[in-house]
């Protein structure tokens, strides 16, 4: 697999917010690559630039510098038409399942929408779209007649399944998942994570998984990139970053996340306090 070309290669990505004197670098020289068919976890606290990175890769934010290669093609300097065509190969799943579906549209409409804008030669017939919607709704564990209903009739977990189905309508190669399970309950979170891994195995999807929760990222990712203040602090395999973090910030982050085990949690807390005292002495 390593000999294969990575699906996404990001080099020295820079994204700036604001204009003039209030210009601020939200992402500053970020580089990483996602080997085809794997998951990269992007971890950081608020303001670390993890969502900004994801949005820049999707082309929703202008980049100020750097290069993004999608399957070896530079998408930073691509004509608008071609970039539009790429829409079918990159998709997105957002955090908030309540605002990511248009409340005034049926699920069927929401699922069909991406297909309607495909280039004419690839455009599917209405019947084909309906078939595919029904198939994907079943694939994500919902009944096909969900297509006739409205978002308000579904729970958060179900809506996130619908959002996943929508992202799969055009058979994308890469899906950017921006905190897809943060708004979900623990038991629902497990179901959505399982669904994502299953889909990855069955369809050979590559995922950019953005999250603040290290244990979730560790569970689903092959490799992890830790961001702080727009820069990469540490990157490596999921095992290495989670079990043997090299950088101080990663260690702090790991020590701060509470774990559901009172004994282990007490150990972490003591470790955290020891660190704090150390820091004060320095």
């Amino acid at each position: 697999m390593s000999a294969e070309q990575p699906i996404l290669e990001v080099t020295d990505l820079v994204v700036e917010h604001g204009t003039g004197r209030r210009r601020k670098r939200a992402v500053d020289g970020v580089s990483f690559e996602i080997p085809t068919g794997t998951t990269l976890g992007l971890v950081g606290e608020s303001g670390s630039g993890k969502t900004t990175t994801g949005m820049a890769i999707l082309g929703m934010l202008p980049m100020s510098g750097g290069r993004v290669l999608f399957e070896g093609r530079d998408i930073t300097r691509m004509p608008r038409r071609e970039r539009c065509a790429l829409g079918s190969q990159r998709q997105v799943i957002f955090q908030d399942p309540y605002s990511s579906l248009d409340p005034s549209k049926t699920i069927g409409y929401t699922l069909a929408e991406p297909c309607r804008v495909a280039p004419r030669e690839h455009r599917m017939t209405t019947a084909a779209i309906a078939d595919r919607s029904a198939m994907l709704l079943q694939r994500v564990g919902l009944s096909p007649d969900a297509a006739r209903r409205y978002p308000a009739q579904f729970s958060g977990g179900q809506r996130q399944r619908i959002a996943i189905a929508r992202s799969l309508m055009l058979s994308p190669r890469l899906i950017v998942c921006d905190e897809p399970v943060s708004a979900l309950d623990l038991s629902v979170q497990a179901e959505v994570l399982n669904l994502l891994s299953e889909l990855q195995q069955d369809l050979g999807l590559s995922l950019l998984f953005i999250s603040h929760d290290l244990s979730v990222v560790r569970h689903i990712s092959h490799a992890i990139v830790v961001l702080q203040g727009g820069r990469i602090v540490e990157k490596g395999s999921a095992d290495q970053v989670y079990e043997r973090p090299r950088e101080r910030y990663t260690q702090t982050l790991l020590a701060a996340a509470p774990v559901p085990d009172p004994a282990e949690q007490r150990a972490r807390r003591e470790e955290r306090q020891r660190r704090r005292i150390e820091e004060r002495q320095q």
Partner: protein
Amino acid sequence: MNRSNGSRAMSAGLVRRVLRKPLGVVSGVVLILIVGASFAGQWIAPHDPLAQNLRIVRQGPSVAHLLGTDSLGRDVLSRLLFGGQESLSGVVVAVVAMLIIAIPLGILAGYVGGLLDRVILRVVDVLLSIPGTIITLAVLAIFNNNMFVAMVSVGVLASGAFIRVFRSAALSVRQELYIGAARVSGLSRVRIMANHVLPQIRGVLLVQVTLFSAATLGIQTGLAFLAFGPPPPSPTWGGMVAEAATIIQIDPWLLVPTGGVIALTTLALCLLGDAVRDANQERFTLAGLEGKPSAPQAGKSQVHTTGADRDDEARMAVTPGALLSVRGLTVGFGAEGRETTAIQRVDFDIHPGEVVGLVGESGSGKTVTALALLGLLGANGRVTGGSIRLSGEELVGMPHARLREVRGARIAMISQEPMVALDPSFRVGSQIAEAVRAHDRVSRADARARCEELLAAVRLDPAIARRYPHEISGGMAQRVAIAMALAGRPELLIADEPTTALDVTVQADILDLLRTVQEETQMAVILVSHDWGVVADLCSRAIVMYAGEVVERARVADVFAAPRHPYTTALLRSNPHGAEPGKPLPTIGGSVPAPQEWPVGCHFAARCPLATEACRVAPIDIVHLEGDRASRCIHIDELAEVRA
């Protein structure tokens, strides 16, 4: 095809909501009658509007002339019916002209933004600064008294204000994530604006249209009053008022039907606008409610009283030495007598100085329990059974004034969103001092001193007191909220998801702070949380809730080591921490039932691998186990075997 289906259903929803309001129905019917009658005038008018009969001038209402006759003996009703066509079509012309300009420009300015937005706003500024009346009169003079052109110019001149309204509506829709998803799919801007933005501003649009129609009717009839528009003898509403005004001394009656129809139409339009606004608001708030399973849903009544009926003396007995004893607590939401139960038969004790976690997922009722303890259920909710005793004193049914003394002074609360608890227009220090003075009658200087003490207690720099809430971070705001909660030296602190909105490193700091503060003050803490990590960190005991019931109570170490309820077991297993990476996580399957769907028996039975017929036929009681433990499960022994 789908699109039209979607929008039709949406507007149908709005129309149905409007029709559910008496105000909406009445004003709608009145408008339809007036408009319909006016445009059907040539068929239903009893007389020719121009036919004069000088023998019956200035008569009051009679069978032949329902609304009387005017000074030339013409039938007032017929003239009103024909005159309405002119006035009402003038209104339609102005509204259409306004919408044609305001909708596209408003949406473009709001959705596209940037330079286009600035240009459009400048144009709007120009439009707003033009004196409308003078321009309209000038237009009438230039276009030879042509009412159509005049009404178009009224619409154009008014569009400035409406561009702003539609722009701000579109701005708020732009932030929605589904717009982002549509952009990623490659949808063009025009399509996004037409398919996603326009339907969302429909409600605002309808309200504005009704209000603008009312205003335009005033302008149209005003112009006719000033003798613009069709010349006499053709009937116009404004012209008829003018005529009535000249003979007001001789015949006051004539002013009643002519002025009345204008007033009635205007009033109906305004009231319809109100009804549409309320209905539109409702659609969003109700949609929000439907979205959050934790919020109790008003629906058909299903109050389970079986548990309360079987309450025996032993169960209701208060544990001696407990700070807080909750027994059989049942809370319902909705109309009195037809409540939907949100929590039922909740029992637990909190001992002084103890930190207890109230754990559960959305819809478990943990937040409702916390709010019930504080008497903060709101107008819609009430305690329908059971008791809450604080040091032996019953809180259920306590008068509001007394309850207010208990709140804050003996029970305090911090919430998930600390910023919401702070008033953005006052300095942090004065808000803390206010909290201090609410409990202690102290001088300003003493309050300030106590404020500094409290800030020190939550490890904040005293200089923070001079800052405004927007100048501090979320973590600091939560510290300030804790300081305010400590102001009354409470015996019990209810912390509702206090760290959920914070970053992990900040969360760790706040948890450490809560621990230190708790150790220093020895107050008891109820920590409402969905996060088992937070519970493991801070709590000594845990109360697990599922679908409105307490399913397990135990020491925290025991819950994690050997949960004694199948739900707790399953929930803990679904945590990715400790699971093998790459392997599927164990899931529960199914979903939490809504209060209306609660079964008679065990609420978890439908999702439980151990469930048998016995679980489904009757309510399950809490079983007291060794030590302090309790579980609402009749298969505890099998559960132990499964684990072993």
